[in-house]
């Protein structure tokens, strides 16, 4: 065989070998491209799922403060099995993301589905910063009742999932905001330590139908007894919990 032909055959053999290595990788990439477009919601859940599956054995019951099935004017915590892990920041992220996306029905969502938790930081002193996307103020129905419910859903769920968080600053798209969507105060920090231990929540399977109560109350708690005015003595009224300024 002439020398030139031998060289050509050798080159061809090398090309075939290279193809054997490259082709499977190429096929994998093509098959990835072919996968159907995901909805934003599905994509978001996909982000959470691998972590959940990896730690499947370590699932714990976490109360999710969604809107009550029977009365959308109040929150009704649902004990939800979640694998949140041990890192407080990861726990906070996962809990808040599940609060946004995991509600059993659209009517039970306290926050708009398009809301994204852009960032979550936790400092050593227990001060946390949660930065939500603009979808939160833009798509949340404006009003005192709706905004207070959204805020309570965030603070209560976070308080239950990550007890280390003592104070919470809420930012919108990286900026401090005066109000959530025109009504409820977002300036300063929310003091979560005044909330007390997390409320025992209803089991995930069956949320007991609670008696309809006025907006803004919590289903699993007895509504606070109305302080019958005019009371003779100056009674301490539970009120604002935002320490300001100095921090």
């Amino acid at each position: 065989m002439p020398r030139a032909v031998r060289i050509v055959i050798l080159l061809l053999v090398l090309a075939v070998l290279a193809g054997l290595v490259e082709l499977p990788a190429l096929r994998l990439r093509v098959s990835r491209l072919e996968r159907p477009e995901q909805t934003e919601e599905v994509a978001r859940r996909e982000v959470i799922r691998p972590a959940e599956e990896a730690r499947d054995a370590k699932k714990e019951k976490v109360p999710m403060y969604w809107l009550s099935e029977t009365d959308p004017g109040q929150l009704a915590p649902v004990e939800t099995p979640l694998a949140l892990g041990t890192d407080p920041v990861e726990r906070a992220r996962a809990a808040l993301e599940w609060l946004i996306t995991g509600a059993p029905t659209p009517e039970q969502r306290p926050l708009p589905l398009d809301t994204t938790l852009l960032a979550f930081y936790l400092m050593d002193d227990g001060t946390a910063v949660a930065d939500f996307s603009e979808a939160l103020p833009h798509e949340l129905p404006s009003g005192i009742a709706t905004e207070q419910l959204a805020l309570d859903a965030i603070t209560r769920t976070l308080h239950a999932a990550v007890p280390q968080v003592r104070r919470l600053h809420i930012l919108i798209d990286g900026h401090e905001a005066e109000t959530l969507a025109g009504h409820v105060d977002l300036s300063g920090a929310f003091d979560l330590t005044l909330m007390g231990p997390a409320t025992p929540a209803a089991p995930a399977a069956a949320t007991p139908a609670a008696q309809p109560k006025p907006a803004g109350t919590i289903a699993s708690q007895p509504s606070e007894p109305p302080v019958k005015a005019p009371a003779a003595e100056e009674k301490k009224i539970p009120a604002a919990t935002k320490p300001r300024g100095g921090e």
Partner: protein
Amino acid sequence: MLFGGMGKKKSARTAGLAAIFVALAAFGSANPGAQAPMPPQSPGPPIHAPTTQQAPPPLFPPPSPIERPATPPPTTVILDPAHGGQDSGAHGDPAEEGAVEKDLVLAIALGMRRELERQGIRVVLTRQNDSAVSIDERAAVANALGAGYFVSLHVGSTGEANTAQAYSFGTPHGGAPPAFVPRPPGIEAVRWDDAQAGYLVASRRLAELVQVELAQKLPRSPDVPQFAEVRQLRVVAHPAVAIELSRVAEANPASLEKTAVPLATAMVKAIAAYRQASEGRP
């Protein structure tokens, strides 16, 4: 990176907040003669309110029938039609269709003013047309008045149609009263942002009395008021409530304007009951 930035922001804010320390003769009901805090100002040294400033009439005057004037001064109600200008407040879906909160609350406020004045009550509006008035500007109008009752009017996105819920400032889950910045010794001051601090109990009582009336005037309304962290109420140095009517989607302006008279009457009755309880005045 973020924390460094925030630290800077915070120190700037603290400086700004220090600047808005203003003298207050007292905190609300406990000490009569409270002076209203001033609106936020640019950073600088703490400003002490001039001692020459006239103190407003006490919220709870001592019960001495001899010194009481023959005709008590007229009650002042500060009506706050929320939102306005670019801020439409709550709206239907889509936003372009149907009534919007800012128009509804203005119509209601104007109707309420007519009825309140007819009943001998002095009325101050925080806005009289579709203008943009900031939350602090509204509070400044209210806090400049000696004594009064502040009512922020809203039409919300949810709730049973044609019902009303009253709110006073506070968190729904209760907890302790607000932790305030310790005041330097010798300076009786309150920060602008904490103007409501001395009125939390008073506002809660007023809200209870208002809600009782609302439940009668607008059937199927709740019996008890709620706490909410309403930004507007936070900066008001008066007994202050927010009333949120339900709801903007069903609202037709003609029928909502009709609620102005019952709402005004509810306020008159609630304030009368409040004054009777707090001052022993019939």
